[in-house]
């Protein structure tokens, strides 16, 4: 009976994995084939394997620039989001002050608005501050759109850190900022890792704001770069797939690096 149950579970998991990983494997295969080969047979194995497509995309199709732009914008945004988000969450969770819950509610309520409604005003703001078509402008927008969710996730975690820890650190002679930096931040690392991964993946793949706020070729991010291969009448499917694979690598690296912490964060009871 137990074996039957186990086998059923195994089959179910295999099917689910195939379902989830299938498109990824397919895109990986497409990335190693030319567009002509792909048009001949959509599902064939790469034969011959066109490894040269990767350096070709990187150097000749400007992916190196898009990649560097994405990396700069997303890393800067994630660093600012993590630091500001953690500090804000710590304050909201720990300190009693007038309007604490009102601020929290206002921050949280912005999550429910669809991002599209802010695009035109953001465009205007960036233009008037000379930040349109710049990486700094896009970074600031990314910070603004992701900050409420970051604070929301972190606040609930920070609120669960027992106050005694902070009291003990106060008695040990540490200032409020040191307590945040040396106690609250490291203790909340599982939750912080969760927001790092979440923000990194969301922003790495972000297209809507980037396409509106960046038009300059030298400032394009990866999603915009991939879009360049989609023309009005035809698209270079092979190159798009290669671009996708290049784009996906950092996400996999970040996930692999932080995944254990992510799981800890999601299954938390971590503070005891």
């Amino acid at each position, binding site marked *: 009976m137990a074996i039957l149950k186990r086998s059923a579970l195994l089959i179910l998991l295999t099917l689910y994995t195939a379902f989830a990983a299938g498109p990824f494997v397919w895109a990986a295969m497409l990335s190693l084939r030319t567009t002509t080969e792909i048009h001949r047979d959509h599902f064939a194995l790469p034969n011959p394997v066109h490894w040269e497509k990767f350096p070709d995309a990187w150097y000749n199709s400007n992916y190196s620039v898009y990649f560097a732009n994405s990396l700069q914008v997303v890393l800067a945004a994630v660093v600012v989001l993590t630091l500001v988000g953690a500090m804000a969450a710590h304050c909201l969770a720990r300190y009693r002050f007038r309007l604490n819950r009102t601020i929290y509610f206002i921050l949280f309520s912005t999550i429910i608005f669809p991002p599209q409604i802010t695009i035109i005003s953001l465009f205007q703001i960036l233009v008037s501050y000379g930040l349109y078509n710049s990486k700094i402008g896009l970074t600031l927008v990314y910070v603004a759109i992701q900050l409420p969710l970051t604070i929301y996730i972190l606040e609930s975690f920070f609120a669960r850190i027992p106050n005694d820890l902070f009291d003990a*650190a106060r*008695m040990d002679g*540490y200032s409020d900022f040191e307590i945040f930096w040396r106690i609250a931040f490291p*203790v909340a690392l599982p939750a912080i890792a969760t927001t790092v991964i979440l923000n990194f993946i969301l922003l790495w793949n972000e297209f809507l704001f980037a396409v509106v706020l960046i038009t300059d070729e030298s400032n394009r991010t990866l999603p915009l770069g991939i879009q360049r291969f989609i023309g009005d009448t035809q698209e270079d499917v092979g190159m798009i797939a290669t671009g996708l694979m290049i784009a996906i690598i950092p996400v996999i690296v970040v996930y692999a690096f932080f995944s254990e912490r992510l799981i800890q964060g999601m299954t938390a009871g971590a503070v*005891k």
Partner: protein
Amino acid sequence: MAIVTLDSLTKTYEHTGRPAVEDVSLEIGDGELMVLLGPSGCGKTTTLRMIAGLESISSGTLSIDGRVVNRVPAKDRDIAMVFQSYALYPHMSVKENLAFGLRRRSIAKAEIERRVANVADVLGLKDLLHRRPHALSGGQRQRVALGRAIVRDPKVFLFDEPLSNLDAALRVSTRGEIASLHRRLGATMIYVTHDQVEAMTLGTRICIMSSGRVEQVGSPIDVYRYPANTFVAGFLGNPPMNLLETRVVEGGDARSIQLGGETVRLGVDRVPESRAGTPVTFGIRPEHVAVAPAGAASVAVTTEIQQIERLGAETVVIAHLAASGHRLVIRHTGDLEKRPGDDLVVWLDLAQAHVFDAEGDSLTARIDRRT
């Protein structure tokens, strides 16, 4: 070494408007272990947190060695505290936990190492220095928390219910460790608990609190023997003192009360100034109610057994006085061959009895203290 003086200390929280601690005055002598004892919400932890500097003081003064420290931040009061939840930093090893407070105080690295090693040695933490708190048992965590306080060598130690998260056996042994620590260090310690066994066994003196106020301060045995009021009488002791509401006999001797349908003469000492008819509370501890005559001053009353608990070494009987219906708990050493519903004649040892006035204040404690 330090003397801690609380003078009319009051704490009122803005959101409640009611004082959580009211007019608490207390002096804790050098090297004394003062236990703040009381039920949950009586203000003992708030008092401790005010001493620690973790809670602001609404009014009154707090001084350490004569220096008023009301506005001195926690870190500059030279006080260490052991928390109920241990409050060990979960991301640091035992060693880092012990050294964390020292590193802030610009102490030389070698000295920190020496002190940490010393404390680890004393508390048996040597082999655990590189472990994180989550890899320690409850008892070990408790010892690290103690170590973190000791390593700082502070003027005053504060303990906030440090044993309440331990199981019964560990609680007894850790209690012993704290007692020996106090003897060895000779430091001033303030210890908050709601457990009267801890209070009785550890305290040099006990301060019993209720509703934010001090009810009585004294040595454990004094407080047990001479409770200042019905709250203390009912709080200390397990089972607690029997408190029977009655009156001074009308038209009779001013020192006689009505008890179980009988007039009981309490003796010269017991009711000094009460007038006939005054409501009083008669108090007697369960161990001073005997199934056989005990002493010349004992008086017999008839009871009906409601419940009987045979514990082996002793038997606890819950009975009602046949005449008045008053509930009476009796603690009998050894076994007692009785059953619920049986009648039982018991002797109240009046030499050990207490009388409280209508406000609950003891009329007898004052006399006993004078003698």
